[in-house]
């Protein structure tokens, strides 16, 4: 095993899947000759050819709709949307078609498409290259939603999405840590099951629940408060759907306190579901109000993104206050 970055892990995962199964095909804008604007598909066009690495016209509904058609046939298409901010022209195809095909056909037409897209801020991308709108997909029955935060998880979850799941998967890649998150990644056919959260660090005073680029950010905060004597347990959800709320509840039952961290806007964001499920199922364990640390309820800014995004210090302060609230 060698140290690779998150984006390299994705690239390895795609290559691995294509080698294993000829039914895996890729499509998206600039993914062919150019290898993707983030290089997720680097080298694959050359290796697998244009029938399997399909450069598409500028049409996200076209990309996803074509992928759905291929999935109806029985292929395993993996579509790339260049930025999550540009996924909305395909929204109808995703929520009305992909999410509902298995259901509406009584199981006759499963719709196994994997839709990969880079998301999140922190790259000075402004309003349209920074969005985190995972709640739109997580709240739609019929879609699975995956968000890795390490290279190993990225590859493992991606291979599970492609090989084991037979349902539409929205695979969100935290682009801010594409190159900064590095780590060892198992060679070959490495898979991580959906619905199993990862306890990043154990602790007894307060539970911190997060995902994506906010996981390393939260870990820094957890390490910072440790110096102040606060022992926080950090959970990386890995998949929002299916949600491993058991791991979250087990932790909160132990700590009695919960902090939720995501960079998406707070109001009606995914943190709301986490907060609701915790209070509904562990009310009598709660020693303090649950705290949601999130992006503010504004569109994503450009000049001021550092204020908008939960910073390590903002998270640390929230953890510390929640841990000590009486």
């Amino acid at each position, binding site marked *: 095993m060698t140290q690779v970055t998150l984006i390299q892990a994705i690239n390895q995962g795609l290559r691995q899947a294509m080698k294993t199964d000829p039914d895996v095909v890729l499509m998206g804008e600039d993914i062919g000759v150019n290898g993707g604007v983030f290089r997720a598909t680097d080298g694959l066009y050359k290796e697998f050819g244009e029938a399997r690495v399909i450069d598409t016209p500028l049409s996200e*509904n076209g990309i996803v709709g*074509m992928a759905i058609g291929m999935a109806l046939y029985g292929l395993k298409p993996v579509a790339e949307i260049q930025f999550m901010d540009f996924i909305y022209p395909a929204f*109808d195809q995703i929520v009305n078609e992909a999410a509902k095909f*298995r259901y509406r*056909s*009584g*199981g006759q*037409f499963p719709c196994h498409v994997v839709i990969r897209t880079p998301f999140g801020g922190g790259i000075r991308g402004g309003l349209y290259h920074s969005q985190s709108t995972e709640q739109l997909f997580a709240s739609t029955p019929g879609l699975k939603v995956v968000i890795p935060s390490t290279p190993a998880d990225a590859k493992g979850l991606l291979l599970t999405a492609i090989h084991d799941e037979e349902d539409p998967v929205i695979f969100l890649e935290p682009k801010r840590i594409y190159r900064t998150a590095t780590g060892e990644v198992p060679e070959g056919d490495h898979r991580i099951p959906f619905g199993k959260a990862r306890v990043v660090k154990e602790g007894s005073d307060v539970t911190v629940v997060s995902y994506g680029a906010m996981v390393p950010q939260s870990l820094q905060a957890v390490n910072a408060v440790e110096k102040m004597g606060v022992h926080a347990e950090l959970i990386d959800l890995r998949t929002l759907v*299916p949600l491993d709320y058991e791991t979250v509840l087990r932790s909160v039952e132990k700590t009695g306190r919960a902090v939720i961290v995501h960079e998406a806007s707070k109001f009606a964001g995914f943190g709301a579901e986490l907060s609701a499920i915790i209070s509904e199922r562990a009310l009598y364990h709660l020693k303090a109000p649950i705290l949601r640390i999130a992006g503010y309820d504004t569109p994503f800014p450009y000049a001021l993104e550092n204020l908008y995004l939960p910073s390590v210090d903002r998270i640390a302060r929230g953890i510390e206050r929640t841990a000590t609230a009486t």
Partner: protein
Amino acid sequence: MLRALKLMVTGRVADERSVNLQRQGRIGFYVQMDGQEAAQVGCGLALEPEDWVVPAYRELGVALARGVPLQTLFDQFYANSNDENKGRQMPTHYGYRAYRYVTASSPVGTQIIHAVGLGMAARYKGEKSVTVPFFGDGATSSSDFHAGLNFAGVYNAPVVFFCQNNGWAISLPREKQTRSKTLAGKAEAYGIRGVQVDGNDFAAVYRVVQEARERAVSGEGPTLVEALTYRMGSHSTSDDPTRYRSTAEVASWKQKDPIERLARDLIARGWITEDQFEALQEAARAEVQAAIQTAEQTPPTSPDTLFTDVFKSNPSYVEEQRAELSELVREGVVKP
């Protein structure tokens, strides 16, 4: 030809009865093809079993031409426990994998781009087949029409786009849908072939589709077929067409009824007699009646199916809801 006439008549009778069943509250919302039988059966019969059909919600004639049994269809209209689509959708929104007939949805146009993906997948797997999306004049304004034709052009996909221009998209006449001279002409914007055909002429439709199919299969590219026809009935059982179109217009198209036209033609050629045509209609009525009876006697969809097919297997919290509902049903708090 005789087979075509039989299918068209069966479709007409099934439609008429279904509209009545809806009025009587025995089935839900219904969409009839009334007037479009030649286009649908003509296209449907020109296809081979290995071809894929990706329909909208009005394609009864295509389903019959593909060989889907009447009983199967009425089980769907009744959303009973034999419905292969498990009672998940309103009548006329069905699909059957065995017939390579994809389950329809209501959103207009979405299937057009699916067809391109399906066609490309079939080609990738070495199949010699075409994929045929069905859609109306209104659907040509949709985003997925634009993507579908554009992608098909770029990838030279083995697809025959079958547009039934029935003059209306609910209350909007074709001329107000788009200012293009013809719908077939839109093909050029995507570098593909476009053909307009008299959609009430069974034989003409059959020929045009067969030719387009051959071209597609042999790699000569996709075709957009515009079949000129007319929706003689209402848009759906929720619609009142007298609000937006003249009875004169409807009457003039009544003269061009595709079933009458084919029957007259066959009688003139001596292939059938007037009596045989009568008998054929009678047989269709009996067949439809039998299907209705069986469908009505079949038990309804089971409550538990609410939770199947959301995913291959459900997350734990969805299973909890399933258990909760079972309890509620058991205790009589909710009634199916």
